[in-house]
């Protein structure tokens, strides 16, 4: 990580960038926050470790409007989102100096807590330079140990690969973490009976407190004024519980990002209630791949999104019934 900080200081010093966008250590060892660093001194509390899961490309929308270039650190899965934002003219590629940082899989503190580890004081083995095999966690109840893979975020188990799609420089090496099938969970739900499916989603969605964390974290969900906040669709504010958009919020959000979602997993990571929101987006990705051909949003900045494209012999909507 020291190597990253030195490089950032150099770029700040020689004026190629006006500011640095990275992660700042939080009050606890496992909650670093995205932050701007204007000068070298501020960089002292810069941190990059296994808990830096935040996708910084969405912040670049605002950063592109500021004066001068911004240095930004992007993990491999973040670069897909950045490409998608370029395609939609939401970020300015010239205003960004991108350093692709290595990634060995990001950690999910909820999984650590669920493993019964409480009162955490410090965590070792989560540094980017570590081998990312096991975590030694100092807690007030003594030292606990946990395999790195067990604490990893769900999205890292189905990681899309460690090459950065867009960057100016690369620092740090990565480690393959994919050990699960991308659509396994989706297929498990598809196999359920309609009653079970409905019960599963009703149970999950009833936990939703409409805090909009998923919408704010999602790089594809970048409208200036969201349709749920404007008067365009007569979809009222979030306060009214029984109105239209309350119930369908997650389905409509998934539909709006369908074909544009890069499956970066931020929505599930930031959800305070732990709802597996990625299941909606991944279902659309699976359908688009099956019906209209493999498509990975963010792989390039020119291709037409599947929902703004068509072929003459697309499948008929009745295929949904036949497919079962």
């Amino acid at each position, binding site marked *: 990580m020291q190597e990253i900080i030195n490089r950032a200081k150099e770029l700040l010093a020689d004026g190629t960038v006006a500011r640095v966008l990275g992660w700042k250590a939080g009050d606890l060892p496992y909650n670093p926050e995205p932050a701007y660093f204007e000068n070298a001194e501020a960089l002292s509390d810069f941190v990059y470790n296994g808990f830096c899961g935040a996708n910084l490309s969405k912040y670049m929308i605002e950063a592109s409007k500021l004066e001068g270039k911004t240095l930004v650190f992007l993990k491999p899965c973040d670069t897909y989102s950045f490409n998608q934002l370029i395609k939609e003219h939401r970020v300015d590629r010239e205003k960004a100096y991108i350093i692709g940082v290595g990634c060995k899989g990001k950690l999910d503190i909820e999984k650590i807590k669920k493993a019964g580890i409480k009162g955490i004081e410090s965590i070792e083995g989560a540094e980017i330079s570590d081998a990312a095999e096991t975590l030694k966690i100092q807690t007030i109840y003594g030292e606990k140990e946990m395999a790195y893979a067990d604490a990893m975020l769900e999205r890292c188990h189905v990681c899309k690969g460690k090459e950065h799609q867009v960057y100016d420089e690369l620092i740090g090496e990565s480690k393959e973490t994919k050990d699960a099938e991308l659509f396994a969970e989706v297929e498990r739900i598809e196999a359920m009976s309609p009653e079970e499916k409905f019960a599963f989603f009703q149970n999950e969605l009833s936990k939703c407190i409409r805090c909009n964390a998923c919408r704010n974290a999602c790089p594809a969900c970048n409208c*200036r004024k969201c349709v749920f906040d*404007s008067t365009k669709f007569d979809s009222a504010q979030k306060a009214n519980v029984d109105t239209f958009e309350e119930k369908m919020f997650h389905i409509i959000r998934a539909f*709006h990002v369908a074909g544009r979602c890069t499956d970066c997993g931020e929505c599930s990571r930031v959800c305070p209630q732990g709802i597996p929101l990625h299941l909606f987006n991944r279902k659309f990705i699976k359908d688009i791949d099956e019906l209209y051909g493999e498509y990975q949003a963010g792989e390039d900045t020119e291709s037409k999104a599947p929902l703004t494209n068509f072929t003459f012999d697309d499948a008929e909507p009745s295929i949904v019934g036949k497919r079962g």
Partner: protein
Amino acid sequence: MQRLGVFVCHCGSNIAATVDVAKVAEMALMEPGVVHAEDYQYMCSEAGQAKIAEAIKEKNLTGIVVCSCSPRMHEATFRKAAERAGLNPYMVEIANIREHCSWIHKDMEEATKKAVILMRAAVAKVNLNTPLQPGESRVTKRALVIGGGIAGIQTALDIADAGYEVDIVEKTPSIGGRMSQLDKTFPTLDCSACILTPKMVEASAHEKINIYTYSEVEKVSGFVGDFTVDIRKKARHVDMDKCTGCGVCQEKCPSKKAPSEFNRGLNKRSAIYTPFAQAIPNVPVIDCDNCIKFKTGKCGICAKVCQAGAIDYEQQDEIVTQKYGAIVVATGFDTINLEKYDEYAYSQSPDVITSLELERVMNAAGPTHGHLERLSDGKAPKEIVFIQCVGSRCSDDRGKPYCSKICCMYTAKHAMLIRDKYPDVNVTVFYIDVRTPGKNFDEFYRRAVEQYGVNYIKGQVGKVILQPNGKLLVQGADLLDNRQILKEADMVVLATAIEPNPDVRKIATMLTASIDTNNFLTEAHAKLRPVESPTAGIFLSGVCQGPKDIPETVAQAGAAAVKAIGLLAKDKLLTNPCTAKSDELLCNGCSTCANVCPYGAITYEDKEVNDHGIREVRRLAVVNNALCQGCGACTVACPSGAMDLQGFSNRQIIAEVDAICR
């Protein structure tokens, strides 16, 4: 709040018979914003429209709902009525309580309940209507005619006589179309070429008409008044300016194997050919599939013998892009494929021919130079049998369900001509019904029977058997005498069903003109607008719209020309104001809408915007109202709802949904 008026029409008894119109008017008063409601026998009548105008003025209404027939029928009428009374015409909504309610439900109580719901939906929608002004778009004073048959030629002549530029695009090397293949025409028996060639010459000489032959329409974009069309001029390999039409190349060409399409494949033609003698333009075309030079690289005789040096083997296809205000489709017809009708032995014996092939056999310029002879052995036939309705009026998938309309007349013509020229030949016609309606048509058919002794037998033919001695045995039934007939014949002529030119479907897709399952182009209204396509700016001339004979084709060609002239005469066209509009404060500038716009009506510009105090330059979508046709694809592609469609806005449709599900 709007001040709305609801007018419920009885439509005589069409609506009032199964919908309690008084109750609908009474329920209307309970809807938000409705200050006036009444029902009347005929809202679309002068008196009805007067009631609307009076109510608007008296109660200064800001919007009206008319519960009546389909908006496709009288929306324009009620909009004009509102406009005359000073109300913006787009503050009018129609609830369709006739076609979608009174005509399809029997039970009064159920139909009335549905009519009330439809009225509520219309009121909910008009509450959110905003006044709209139709824009204007320019009209290119030039017309395109697709197809160079009699229909296309007649339309082009009429349009050109009105002083407008016309382009004819003809797929084959010469204009003339199906009529140029006929021998004589009914009911006056004049020679087809004699009445067609003067028109062809007039068309080619007319300074306002420009003819593209051996060319096809490749791409059409734009809309009424402003079509942009790419025409592919296929390479003739003959320079049209230099060629004098002397015909030496056709004589000297060694490759004589290609079947002549013009003579329906009954004889051969050379690789470099003009379809027929009076071809316009009289410039040959090299058929690359049969030309030895193109196949093997040797030969090249035509280039040697051509004094004018017009042969050019390297000539390439050429794309001409042109702008048009109106397009007339005149693609004509062809006979159906008879392979599936093996009971008539059409593919087993050369003596079983279609009527169109008989036209070529009897034509002086045809393969037999006008002598009526059997194609198998060249002998003169003694017994000829005509079979009617081959492939027509069939509900199975082999043929066509419709009656082809012209066969009874041309069979009577053929029978009469044969009996007249060869009195010793017996002619028998097996028919189901002889359909010869119209002026001088039945008299023509009776002349064939009474004066020329053609033997008409009522009953279809079951089977035609090719006998070893080369004669044909026709097994038919005489339903009037209740006898089965076994008749030996030297020649059998099948009155074959006709179908539209096969590649009209491709053209219909390019023009977005609607087309029915039999490949006939659908007219805007079967009775009241027979020569226009529902797509504005597209007109139909000739058999592409439905089976018809030459007199009707020429009449319809003239009508299509008048409609096109009516359009070209306007300097400006009122455009549909229900176009898309982007809200500057919400637009992300993400180009999703531009990707789905079929008309390329959306462009982007950087504009200074004051969003609640924040001044910044943003990339915004801008809709070009002249190009936008109001389909609404962009409004759904836009996630933030910034793009909305005037007249069918998101809130209006949601209001209708709510009203229906209340």
